[in-house]
C-alpha cells in the first residue's frame, strides 16, 4: 500500500524495472551462482568482513535486486583471500565471481 508518504525511506524494489545487467552477465559466466542457498558461510569467514560491512551474500542479493551501485561499493572492501570459496557448502567459485564483478 502506498500513501505517497512514509516515516522511513522505502526499501521497496520494483522487480519489473530494475537493471539486472551485471547479474545476468555474471550468470552467464558463472552459472553456479544459481545454486547459492544464502547460508552466509562466506560472510561468516570473510577476512574483510571482520573490519567492514563486506558480505558476499549481500552483494549477490543486491545484484539480484538490481542495486548495482551499492554492490559495487561493497565489493571494494574485498581482499580476494578466497576463504569464502573454501567454506562454500555448494562449491561455488565465489572468488572468481568477486573478480568478475570488478571487471
Amino acid at each position, binding site marked *: 500500500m502506498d500513501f505517497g508518504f512514509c516515516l522511513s525511506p522505502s526499501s521497496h524494489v520494483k522487480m519489473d524495472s530494475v537493471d539486472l545487467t551485471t547479474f545476468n552477465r555474471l550468470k552467464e559466466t558463472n552459472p553456479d551462482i544459481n545454486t547459492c542457498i544464502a547460508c552466509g558461510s562466506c560472510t561468516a569467514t570473510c577476512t574483510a568482513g571482520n573490519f567492514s560491512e563486506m558480505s558476499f551474500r549481500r552483494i549477490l542479493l543486491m545484484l539480484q535486486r538490481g542495486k548495482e551501485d551499492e554492490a559495487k561499493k561493497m565489493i571494494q572492501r574485498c*581482499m580476494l*583471500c578466497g576463504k569464502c570459496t573454501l567454506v562454500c557448502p555448494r562449491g561455488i567459485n565465489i*572468488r572468481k565471481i568477486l573478480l568478475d564483478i570488478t571487471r
Partner: protein
Amino acid sequence: MNPQIFHPFVLPFVIGIVFVLTYCVVGLIRVISQLPKDDRKKFWRSLVTPKTAWANVRDLVGDCLLHVKIWKRNPILGYMHSAIAFGWFMIIVIGHIMLFALKPLQGVELEGVQSMLPNLYYPIFYKFFATETPVFAFLMDFFLLMIISGILIAVVKKIRSKIVGVKRVTKFGFADNMIRFALWTIFPFRLLAEKTDKMVFWWIYSIDLCIFMFMLPFTRYMHIPTEALFILLRHAGLKPREPRKGYALAQLYSCPSCGLCIDACPMSVNDKNSGNTSAYFMKRLRNCDMEEAQRIAETCMQCGKCVAVCPVSIESCDIKMSQREAVPYQIHSDHSYLDDYCKDAARHVSTENASRVLYFAGCMTQLTPKIMRAMTQIMTAAGEDFEFLDKDGGVCCGRPMLLSGKTAEAQAMMAKNTELINASGATKLVLSCPICYKVFKEEYYLEGIEILHHTQYIDALLKQGKLKVGKNDVNYVYHDPCELGRAFGVYDEPREVLENVGNLRKAKSEKELSICCGGSLGSFNLTQKERDEITENSVADLMFNQPDVIVTACPLCLKTFARKSPVAVKDIAEVVASQLQ
C-alpha cells in the same frame, strides 16, 4: 685444377639463410629496445659481470649445445634432441673447419662480396664442391648418422609417444607439422645426395633447408636462435613486465613447445584440461590469441611445476602473471577502512617489552585454528617470547590479490601489514601459511626482520634444543606445498623435523616434482569438480608407500586434502605439538 665455386642449386639455401639471419638480427634489436630502461642497463651490466658472464657461458654450452636439462629429465628424449641438434651443429662446424683447414678455394681469384659468398654455402654442400680427407669424411658421416638416429626416435615418438616415456605430446597446427616434416627429411636427403651425387637430391636438400629457414620464425623452431638470447636475459635477473614485450617476448619464442610441461601439469589429470598447460599458453600468446591466453593464464594454479621441469627454464608462471596484470578492471579496491584497525592493532602489538617473535597466522590458518593452537603450544613449550599479529583476524597478506593481477591494491594491504610489523619491534616473523611466506619474502620490505615459515622455525627450535619431542612409529609422508618447496626450496627442514617424530616415507613424486593439492588460490577458473580430480591424483601419489598420516605445511593443502584423503591429514605443527615432551 680449378674447383667449382657455384651451382644454382645452392640458391634456395642462400636465400633462406639470409632471411633467417636478417629476421634474427631484427628480432634481437626489437627485444632489446622493448626492455625498460633499467632492465636494459641491468642486461648490459650482466654481460660484463664475471659471475653472470660465467653462468652465461656455462648455460650456453650446457643448455644450447649439450641439452643437459633434457638428459636429466628423460635420457631418451635427451639423446633424441642432442642427436639432432648437437649433430647438426657439429656438421656445420666441421664443414667450416674443412673450409678453413683444407682450403678448397685456394687459387680461386674472387673479389669483394663474391669472395664472401662461398663461405655461406661451401660448408653445407662441401661434398658437392670438393673432396674431404678420410678423417673429416668419417666425422661427417658419423654425425649425419647420429642425426638420422635421432630423427628415427622422433618418428617413433610421433607415432607412439609412450615408448619414449611421454604420455601426452603437444598438438601442433599446420605450420609446425610442416616444418617438422621438412626437418626430418633434410638429413636423409643429404645422405642420399652425398652418397649418390645425383643433382635431384642436392636440389631437394637445398630446397628443404630453404623451407625450414623460411618457416622457422613462425614456428616453434624459433627456439633454436632465441634460447641463447633468453639465457643471457635470464641471468641478468629480469622479470617479464608485459606479456608480449621484451623479456617475455624472448621467452615466448624460446619455448620449443616440447610438451614436457603437459605431463607435469597437475591439471592434465583431466585430459580436457591438458590444453590449459604452459606449452599451449605460450603458443596462444605467441600467436596473439589474447582471449584464450587470458583464459589459460587465469586457469593456471601457479604451482610452478612447469617451470621446474622446463628444459629451457622458461618462467611461464611469471608471464601468466604479467598477462593477468595487463587486464583492466572497472572497480578498484578501497581498503581505507583498515586504518582504524591498524591504529588499534599497532597499539596492541607494540608492548613495552617488545616481543622478539611475531606470529602471523594468515587467513587460511584462521580457517584451521588447530594449527594456531599447535603453534601456540610449541612456542610456549620452547619458552619463546611471542606475540600474535592476527589473533582475532588480521589483514590479508596480499598474495591472493596479487594473483589476480591487481598489484596496486595488493600493495595497499601490504603497506598496512608492514606498518603493523614495524610497530611491533619484532626481529623474527613466523608464518604458518606458505602463501603468506612467499609474498612476505618477495614483496615486503621488512628491514632487520627474519622471515620464517613454521617448518623452518620448528626445525631451528629442535636443533637449538629448545624443543624436546618423542619419537613414535607412525609412518608419515610429507607433501611439499608449492609455495614453500618449489618457490623457496624448503625441502629438508620439514623432513628433518618429521624424522625426529616418526618414520618418514617417500611419496611417488617429491620435492620439485610434488603435485599441487588442487586448492591453489592461483587459479580462478577451475571448478570444484576439476579441483577434486587434481586432489585425488595428488593424494594417490602421496599414498604410494602406504603412510599412516599425510603431513603438510600449508593450511590450504590441509583443508583440500582432508576432503579426499583415506588417512588422517595433519599440519607439521600439529604433529610436533602432539609429541612434545
